[in-house]
Protein backbone atom coordinates (compact mmCIF):
# COMPACT_ATOMS: atom_id res chain seq x y z
CA UNK A 1 0.00 0.00 0.00
CA UNK A 2 1.47 3.33 -1.03
CA UNK A 3 2.16 5.95 1.59
CA UNK A 4 1.73 3.54 4.43
CA UNK A 5 3.39 4.73 7.62
CA UNK A 6 3.47 1.68 9.79
CA UNK A 7 2.34 -1.87 10.30
CA UNK A 8 2.25 -4.49 13.02
CA UNK A 9 2.65 -8.23 13.11
CA UNK A 10 0.77 -10.10 15.83
CA UNK A 11 2.04 -13.54 16.76
CA UNK A 12 -1.22 -15.45 17.10
CA UNK A 13 0.34 -18.23 19.11
CA UNK A 14 1.61 -15.85 21.82
CA UNK A 15 -1.62 -13.85 22.13
CA UNK A 16 -4.04 -14.61 24.96
CA UNK A 17 -6.88 -12.44 23.70
CA UNK A 18 -6.85 -9.96 26.58
CA UNK A 19 -8.17 -7.08 24.39
CA UNK A 20 -5.69 -4.55 25.86
CA UNK A 21 -4.20 -3.75 22.41
CA UNK A 22 -7.69 -3.36 20.96
CA UNK A 23 -8.46 -0.85 23.70
CA UNK A 24 -5.14 0.93 23.16
CA UNK A 25 -5.12 1.30 19.35
CA UNK A 26 -6.03 4.92 18.56
CA UNK A 27 -7.25 3.93 15.09
CA UNK A 28 -9.19 0.77 16.05
CA UNK A 29 -7.18 -1.37 13.69
CA UNK A 30 -7.03 -4.51 15.80
CA UNK A 31 -9.77 -7.12 16.00
CA UNK A 32 -10.31 -10.55 17.48
CA UNK A 33 -9.84 -13.58 15.24
CA UNK A 34 -12.68 -16.09 15.23
CA UNK A 35 -10.51 -19.22 15.51
CA UNK A 36 -8.81 -20.47 18.64
CA UNK A 37 -5.03 -20.60 18.84
CA UNK A 38 -2.96 -23.43 20.35
CA UNK A 39 -3.26 -21.90 23.81
CA UNK A 40 -7.05 -21.96 23.57
CA UNK A 41 -7.65 -18.23 23.23
CA UNK A 42 -9.20 -16.15 20.48
CA UNK A 43 -6.17 -14.11 19.42
CA UNK A 44 -6.04 -10.52 18.22
CA UNK A 45 -5.29 -9.78 14.57
CA UNK A 46 -4.36 -6.71 12.55
CA UNK A 47 -7.39 -5.59 10.52
CA UNK A 48 -5.57 -4.73 7.35
CA UNK A 49 -8.57 -4.98 5.03
CA UNK A 50 -10.81 -2.11 6.16
CA UNK A 51 -8.42 0.66 7.02
CA UNK A 52 -8.84 2.89 3.99
CA UNK A 53 -9.40 6.04 6.01
CA UNK A 54 -7.49 4.94 9.10
CA UNK A 55 -3.93 3.74 8.81
CA UNK A 56 -1.45 2.27 11.23
CA UNK A 57 1.00 4.99 12.16
CA UNK A 58 3.42 2.62 13.86
CA UNK A 59 2.90 4.38 17.20
CA UNK A 60 3.59 1.07 19.03
CA UNK A 61 1.03 1.72 21.76
CA UNK A 62 -0.46 -1.75 21.16
CA UNK A 63 2.95 -3.36 21.63
CA UNK A 64 3.60 -1.26 24.71
CA UNK A 65 0.48 -2.53 26.50
CA UNK A 66 0.69 -6.12 25.21
CA UNK A 67 1.42 -8.33 28.22
CA UNK A 68 2.61 -11.20 26.05
CA UNK A 69 5.07 -9.40 23.75
CA UNK A 70 3.08 -10.76 20.83
CA UNK A 71 3.28 -7.62 18.69
CA UNK A 72 6.12 -6.39 16.52
CA UNK A 73 5.88 -2.87 15.09
CA UNK A 74 7.36 -1.56 11.85
CA UNK A 75 7.55 2.07 10.77
CA UNK A 76 8.76 3.94 7.66
Amino acid at each position, binding site marked *: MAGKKGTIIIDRELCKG*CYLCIEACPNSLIGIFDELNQLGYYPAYYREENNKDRECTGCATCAL*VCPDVAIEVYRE
Partner: protein
Amino acid sequence: MQKVFQRPKYLKQAVFHYCPGCGHSIIHRLIAEVIEELGIGEKTIGVPPAGCAVLAYDYIDVDMGEAPHGRGAAVATGLKRVLPDHIVFSYQGDGDIAAIGTAETIHAANRGESISVFFINNACYGMTGGQMAPTTLLGQESTTTPGGRNEKRDAAPLDLSEILAIARGSVYIERTAVNSPRNIRKTKRAITKSFKTQMAGLGFSLVEILSPCPVNWKMTPVEATKWIDDTMVKTYPLKVIKDTVGKIDG
Protein backbone atom coordinates in the same frame (compact mmCIF):
# COMPACT_ATOMS: atom_id res chain seq x y z
CA MET B 1 10.17 -0.48 6.88
CA GLN B 2 12.11 -0.45 10.06
CA LYS B 3 11.40 -2.55 13.07
CA VAL B 4 10.63 -0.19 15.96
CA PHE B 5 9.32 -2.59 18.57
CA GLN B 6 10.37 -6.15 19.20
CA ARG B 7 11.03 -8.60 21.99
CA PRO B 8 13.96 -7.26 24.03
CA LYS B 9 17.26 -9.13 23.93
CA TYR B 10 17.10 -10.22 27.55
CA LEU B 11 13.60 -11.70 27.35
CA LYS B 12 13.66 -15.35 26.32
CA GLN B 13 11.58 -16.66 23.42
CA ALA B 14 8.94 -18.29 25.59
CA VAL B 15 5.20 -18.18 26.09
CA PHE B 16 4.44 -16.59 29.45
CA HIS B 17 2.48 -18.82 31.84
CA TYR B 18 0.64 -15.77 33.21
CA CYS B 19 -3.10 -15.28 32.80
CA PRO B 20 -4.42 -12.99 30.04
CA GLY B 21 -3.94 -9.33 30.99
CA CYS B 22 -1.48 -10.01 33.84
CA GLY B 23 0.88 -7.16 34.70
CA HIS B 24 3.84 -9.43 35.50
CA SER B 25 4.76 -10.04 31.91
CA ILE B 26 4.65 -6.30 31.12
CA ILE B 27 7.03 -5.65 34.01
CA HIS B 28 9.31 -8.53 32.93
CA ARG B 29 9.51 -6.92 29.51
CA LEU B 30 10.24 -3.47 30.96
CA ILE B 31 13.04 -4.83 33.15
CA ALA B 32 14.53 -6.69 30.16
CA GLU B 33 14.32 -3.51 28.05
CA VAL B 34 16.02 -1.39 30.70
CA ILE B 35 18.77 -3.97 31.22
CA GLU B 36 19.40 -3.93 27.46
CA GLU B 37 19.39 -0.13 27.26
CA LEU B 38 21.79 0.26 30.17
CA GLY B 39 24.03 -2.50 28.81
CA ILE B 40 24.21 -4.35 32.12
CA GLY B 41 22.95 -7.75 30.97
CA GLU B 42 26.17 -9.58 31.72
CA LYS B 43 26.45 -8.30 35.27
CA THR B 44 22.86 -8.30 36.46
CA ILE B 45 21.53 -10.83 38.95
CA GLY B 46 17.82 -11.12 39.62
CA VAL B 47 16.08 -12.58 42.65
CA PRO B 48 12.61 -13.88 41.79
CA PRO B 49 9.97 -14.30 44.51
CA ALA B 50 7.59 -17.00 45.60
CA GLY B 51 4.30 -16.34 43.88
CA CYS B 52 3.15 -16.16 40.28
CA ALA B 53 6.48 -14.70 39.20
CA VAL B 54 8.47 -17.56 40.74
CA LEU B 55 9.35 -18.64 37.21
CA ALA B 56 10.72 -15.22 36.23
CA TYR B 57 14.06 -16.95 35.53
CA ASP B 58 12.35 -18.76 32.65
CA TYR B 59 11.71 -15.41 31.00
CA ILE B 60 14.30 -12.80 31.94
CA ASP B 61 17.58 -13.92 30.42
CA VAL B 62 20.03 -12.83 33.13
CA ASP B 63 21.53 -14.69 36.09
CA MET B 64 18.93 -15.45 38.74
CA GLY B 65 19.02 -16.74 42.29
CA GLU B 66 15.70 -17.88 43.66
CA ALA B 67 14.81 -16.70 47.17
CA PRO B 68 12.53 -18.44 49.67
CA HIS B 69 9.20 -16.74 50.24
CA GLY B 70 9.75 -13.12 51.27
CA ARG B 71 13.52 -13.33 51.51
CA GLY B 72 14.24 -11.43 48.30
CA ALA B 73 15.88 -8.44 49.95
CA ALA B 74 17.99 -10.68 52.20
CA VAL B 75 19.21 -12.85 49.32
CA ALA B 76 19.85 -9.75 47.21
CA THR B 77 21.85 -8.26 50.09
CA GLY B 78 24.07 -11.35 50.16
CA LEU B 79 24.58 -11.35 46.41
CA LYS B 80 25.37 -7.65 46.31
CA ARG B 81 27.86 -7.85 49.19
CA VAL B 82 29.71 -10.78 47.62
CA LEU B 83 29.59 -9.30 44.11
CA PRO B 84 29.58 -5.54 44.63
CA ASP B 85 30.31 -4.79 40.97
CA HIS B 86 27.14 -6.58 39.90
CA ILE B 87 23.66 -5.10 39.63
CA VAL B 88 21.25 -6.99 41.88
CA PHE B 89 17.51 -6.64 41.81
CA SER B 90 14.77 -8.48 43.62
CA TYR B 91 11.35 -8.93 42.11
CA GLN B 92 8.64 -9.47 44.68
CA GLY B 93 4.87 -9.60 44.89
CA ASP B 94 2.86 -7.95 47.64
CA GLY B 95 2.31 -11.16 49.59
CA ASP B 96 6.03 -11.85 49.35
CA ILE B 97 7.38 -8.43 50.30
CA ALA B 98 4.61 -7.00 52.51
CA ALA B 99 3.56 -10.09 54.48
CA ILE B 100 6.17 -12.77 55.02
CA GLY B 101 9.13 -10.62 53.96
CA THR B 102 8.35 -7.40 55.82
CA ALA B 103 11.25 -7.75 58.27
CA GLU B 104 13.91 -8.47 55.64
CA THR B 105 12.70 -5.63 53.47
CA ILE B 106 12.58 -3.01 56.20
CA HIS B 107 16.04 -3.94 57.48
CA ALA B 108 17.54 -3.99 53.98
CA ALA B 109 16.13 -0.50 53.42
CA ASN B 110 17.35 0.69 56.80
CA ARG B 111 20.87 -0.61 56.13
CA GLY B 112 20.78 1.19 52.81
CA GLU B 113 21.78 -1.88 50.84
CA SER B 114 22.60 -0.90 47.29
CA ILE B 115 19.95 -3.05 45.63
CA SER B 116 16.90 -2.44 43.47
CA VAL B 117 13.60 -3.88 44.66
CA PHE B 118 10.61 -4.19 42.38
CA PHE B 119 7.44 -4.56 44.41
CA ILE B 120 4.51 -5.75 42.32
CA ASN B 121 1.28 -4.89 44.08
CA ASN B 122 -1.90 -6.60 42.89
CA ALA B 123 -3.74 -6.28 46.23
CA CYS B 124 -4.16 -10.04 46.76
CA TYR B 125 -2.35 -13.36 46.87
CA GLY B 126 -2.52 -14.13 43.18
CA MET B 127 -0.94 -17.57 42.84
CA THR B 128 -2.88 -19.24 45.63
CA GLY B 129 -6.25 -18.03 44.39
CA GLY B 130 -6.90 -14.48 45.53
CA GLN B 131 -6.78 -14.52 49.33
CA MET B 132 -6.49 -11.29 51.31
CA ALA B 133 -2.97 -9.84 51.37
CA PRO B 134 -1.78 -7.01 53.65
CA THR B 135 -2.24 -4.74 50.63
CA THR B 136 -5.87 -5.68 49.95
CA LEU B 137 -8.03 -2.56 49.86
CA LEU B 138 -10.72 -1.84 52.42
CA GLY B 139 -14.00 -3.22 51.10
CA GLN B 140 -12.24 -5.34 48.48
CA GLU B 141 -13.62 -8.85 48.13
CA SER B 142 -11.17 -11.72 48.29
CA THR B 143 -11.65 -15.41 48.99
CA THR B 144 -10.80 -14.84 52.68
CA THR B 145 -12.73 -11.57 52.99
CA PRO B 146 -16.14 -12.34 51.52
CA GLY B 147 -18.20 -9.18 51.83
CA GLY B 148 -15.07 -7.03 51.65
CA ARG B 149 -12.07 -6.26 53.84
CA ASN B 150 -13.17 -4.74 57.13
CA GLU B 151 -10.81 -2.40 58.97
CA LYS B 152 -11.83 -3.58 62.45
CA ARG B 153 -11.63 -7.25 61.67
CA ASP B 154 -8.86 -7.44 59.05
CA ALA B 155 -6.83 -4.24 59.66
CA ALA B 156 -6.18 -1.50 57.14
CA PRO B 157 -3.98 -1.95 54.04
CA LEU B 158 -0.23 -1.78 54.67
CA ASP B 159 1.47 1.12 52.92
CA LEU B 160 4.83 -0.58 52.69
CA SER B 161 6.42 2.00 50.41
CA GLU B 162 5.58 4.82 52.82
CA ILE B 163 6.99 2.78 55.71
CA LEU B 164 10.21 2.17 53.77
CA ALA B 165 10.49 5.86 52.96
CA ILE B 166 10.99 6.51 56.69
CA ALA B 167 13.96 4.14 56.78
CA ARG B 168 17.21 6.11 56.71
CA GLY B 169 18.98 3.99 54.10
CA SER B 170 16.35 4.26 51.37
CA VAL B 171 17.07 6.87 48.73
CA TYR B 172 14.53 6.40 45.98
CA ILE B 173 10.98 5.05 46.28
CA GLU B 174 8.31 5.55 43.66
CA ARG B 175 4.87 4.08 43.08
CA THR B 176 3.76 3.53 39.49
CA ALA B 177 1.32 1.29 37.62
CA VAL B 178 1.20 -0.72 34.40
CA ASN B 179 -2.44 -0.13 33.50
CA SER B 180 -2.11 2.39 30.67
CA PRO B 181 0.46 3.35 28.00
CA ARG B 182 1.34 6.47 29.97
CA ASN B 183 1.83 4.62 33.23
CA ILE B 184 3.83 1.87 31.53
CA ARG B 185 6.24 4.52 30.18
CA LYS B 186 6.49 6.05 33.66
CA THR B 187 7.18 2.63 35.17
CA LYS B 188 10.00 2.10 32.71
CA ARG B 189 11.53 5.44 33.70
CA ALA B 190 11.25 4.48 37.37
CA ILE B 191 12.93 1.10 36.77
CA THR B 192 15.71 2.88 34.86
CA LYS B 193 16.22 5.33 37.69
CA SER B 194 16.30 2.54 40.24
CA PHE B 195 19.03 0.70 38.31
CA LYS B 196 20.98 3.93 37.83
CA THR B 197 20.72 4.67 41.55
CA GLN B 198 22.28 1.31 42.23
CA MET B 199 24.97 1.73 39.56
CA ALA B 200 25.96 4.98 41.24
CA GLY B 201 26.03 3.14 44.59
CA LEU B 202 23.68 5.55 46.30
CA GLY B 203 21.61 3.11 48.33
CA PHE B 204 18.34 1.25 48.54
CA SER B 205 15.74 1.92 45.88
CA LEU B 206 12.29 0.45 45.42
CA VAL B 207 9.65 0.77 42.72
CA GLU B 208 6.15 -0.26 43.74
CA ILE B 209 4.16 -1.19 40.65
CA LEU B 210 0.37 -1.54 40.77
CA SER B 211 -0.36 -4.48 38.55
CA PRO B 212 -3.67 -5.86 37.31
CA CYS B 213 -4.78 -9.35 38.40
CA PRO B 214 -7.95 -9.80 36.32
CA VAL B 215 -8.60 -13.42 37.29
CA ASN B 216 -8.56 -12.90 41.05
CA TRP B 217 -10.32 -9.55 40.83
CA LYS B 218 -12.99 -11.35 38.77
CA MET B 219 -12.80 -8.80 35.97
CA THR B 220 -11.83 -8.72 32.33
CA PRO B 221 -8.30 -7.43 31.65
CA VAL B 222 -9.71 -4.12 30.37
CA GLU B 223 -11.93 -3.72 33.45
CA ALA B 224 -8.94 -4.49 35.67
CA THR B 225 -6.87 -1.69 34.15
CA LYS B 226 -9.76 0.71 34.73
CA TRP B 227 -10.20 -0.53 38.31
CA ILE B 228 -6.61 0.49 39.08
CA ASP B 229 -7.36 4.01 37.81
CA ASP B 230 -10.73 4.31 39.54
CA THR B 231 -10.22 2.52 42.85
CA MET B 232 -6.72 1.30 43.59
CA VAL B 233 -4.94 4.64 43.20
CA LYS B 234 -7.14 6.13 45.93
CA THR B 235 -5.43 3.87 48.47
CA TYR B 236 -2.09 3.77 46.66
CA PRO B 237 -1.57 7.16 44.97
CA LEU B 238 0.94 7.11 42.13
CA LYS B 239 3.81 9.37 43.11
CA VAL B 240 7.45 9.66 43.99
CA ILE B 241 7.41 8.81 47.69
CA LYS B 242 11.05 9.50 48.43
CA ASP B 243 13.79 10.84 46.23
CA THR B 244 17.07 12.04 47.64
CA VAL B 245 18.83 11.06 44.40
CA GLY B 246 17.55 13.84 42.17
CA LYS B 247 18.55 13.81 38.52
CA ILE B 248 20.88 11.00 37.66
CA ASP B 249 22.90 10.30 34.52
CA GLY B 250 25.12 7.51 33.32
